[in-house]
């Protein structure tokens, strides 16, 4: 009976997280279009519902009723599997994120490593999608993406090593608690180098501007998902936005203090401690998502050799320096 209860609680948690994340994905696309519209001095979606608020619903209906076209010479089994790999890997990453104190689906010791495992598996969805479509544009997009993702994965993993060293744990809840104990309250201050590397690598890992080369429309039509249509295309879209939300959540948890705020702030303004933790967490995630949109509206796309040079010659050395300094400070100071 106890076992059944545990299973039921886990199932309820999964359903709640799943629903909330799907809702967020739908409205992340809406706000992306709105914010970028405002930054370009236009309104963005306005037609469906008040201020275009029902636009995501209309988009979803359109995508699910579109004809599902499969190229004649595609490798069918892999063509079917690729979008599933993208969505499953993005969704699995949600299982180790603590949204507020005590609310996490799987509270495992190696939470941060698990996230790296998941990001390393999501590469397959993209490469396989590019290869199995049997189209030049898809293929080149898939290859670019494979090279980009495995290059930036290293920088991202190394930038998180500083956080692991400071917290002394790989469990995400413990990392947040360690930040709360720290006098500065957030690892973004002592780990500013690591935070910078993480932010750039997170943009590259989710294929977002200015690193959206795998889907550079002026060169590759739409990159690895050129041949996908209808709900299979929607799966890639969903995977990308869930990955963005996950990255924002990881940034909030590992560098911005997760569901806590620095102690000096609660000491200065005691009423802040009555605000529930989930609010702080969401504020941080939304701020990071806004940053994603802001960068997309601001920066042009990098050239491919520039992308590789940034990853290997700038971010990786910076991350190494950060690890060395953090280890030195932790050991001798």
């Amino acid at each position, binding site marked *: 009976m106890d076992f059944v209860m545990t299973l039921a609680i886990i199932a309820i948690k999964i359903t709640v997280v799943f629903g909330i994340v799907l809702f967020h994905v739908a409205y992340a696309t809406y706000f992306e279009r709105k914010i970028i519209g405002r930054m370009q001095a236009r309104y963005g979606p306005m037609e469906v519902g008040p201020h275009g608020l029902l636009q995501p619903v209309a988009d979803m209906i359109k995508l699910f009723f579109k004809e599902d076209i499969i190229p004649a010479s595609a*490798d069918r089994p892999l063509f079917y599997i690729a979008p599933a790999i993208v969505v499953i890997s993005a969704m699995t990453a949600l299982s180790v994120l603590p949204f507020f104190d005590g609310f996490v689906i799987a509270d495992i*010791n190696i939470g941060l490593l698990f996230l*790296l495992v998941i990001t390393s598996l999501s590469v*397959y969805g993209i490469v396989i999608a590019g290869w199995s479509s049997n189209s030049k544009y898809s293929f080149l997009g898939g290859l670019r993406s494979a090279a980009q993702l495995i290059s930036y994965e290293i920088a991202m993993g190394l930038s998180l090593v500083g956080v692991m060293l400071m917290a002394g744990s790989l469990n995400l809840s413990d990392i947040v608690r360690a930040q709360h104990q720290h006098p500065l309250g957030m690892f973004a201050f002592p780990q500013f180098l690591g935070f910078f590397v993480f932010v750039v690598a997170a943009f590259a890992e989710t294929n977002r501007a200015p690193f959206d080369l795998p889907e550079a429309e002026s060169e590759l039509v739409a990159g690895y998902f050129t041949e996908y249509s209808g709900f299979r295309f929607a799966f890639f879209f969903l995977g990308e936005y869930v990955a963005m939300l996950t990255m924002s959540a990881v940034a909030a948890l590992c560098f911005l203090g997760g569901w806590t705020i620095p102690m000096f702030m609660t000491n200065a303004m005691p009423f802040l401690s009555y605000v529930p933790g989930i609010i702080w967490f969401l504020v941080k995630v939304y701020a990071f998502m806004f940053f994603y949109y802001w960068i997309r509206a601001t920066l042009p796309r990098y050239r491919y050799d520039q992308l590789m040079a940034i990853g290997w010659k700038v971010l990786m050395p910076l991350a190494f320096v950060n690890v060395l300094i953090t280890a030195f400070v932790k050991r001798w100071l």
Partner: protein
Amino acid sequence: MLPKLFFGYFAAMITILSLLAITRKNLVHGIMWMLLLFVHIGGLYLFLNAEFIAAIQIIVYAGAILVLFLFVVLLLNVKEEFKGRRFISSWQGRGFVAAALLLGIMLVLQYAVIAPHGKYSIEYIQSETHTKVLGTVLFNEYVFPFMILALVLFVPMIAAVVLAVKGRKA
């Protein structure tokens, strides 16, 4: 009962998946079966309470090495299996080698002795977390082998850089 069932599942799947991976005509399909194989090996490590090794198994083998394999296969664009003359064509020869290997393994297993239990019991590892225990052992008792391993891996890296630079026109 349950642990045996789990082990049986992983052992059977690992055997089947490795056979599938090496018998596919299409190399990309072979690599995808191998990915599933690596995930199952990771599962086996988890089952043995070695969560850190399980994560590293997937990050390193599935996330880095296999992606590079895939990259090479895609860049060479080998859609069909390489067809050449077999080095050993007689089935008797192959059978003999396989039988000799099996005999060798059986003989070695005869003399296998189960090592005495150290201080690293499952309870101890669970209370300290596997990552911490592994780090403590690796960087205290086995620093020298660790350094040698680092050197062994460093040498081919230099070789690769030298080869890459040599091919470039100044």
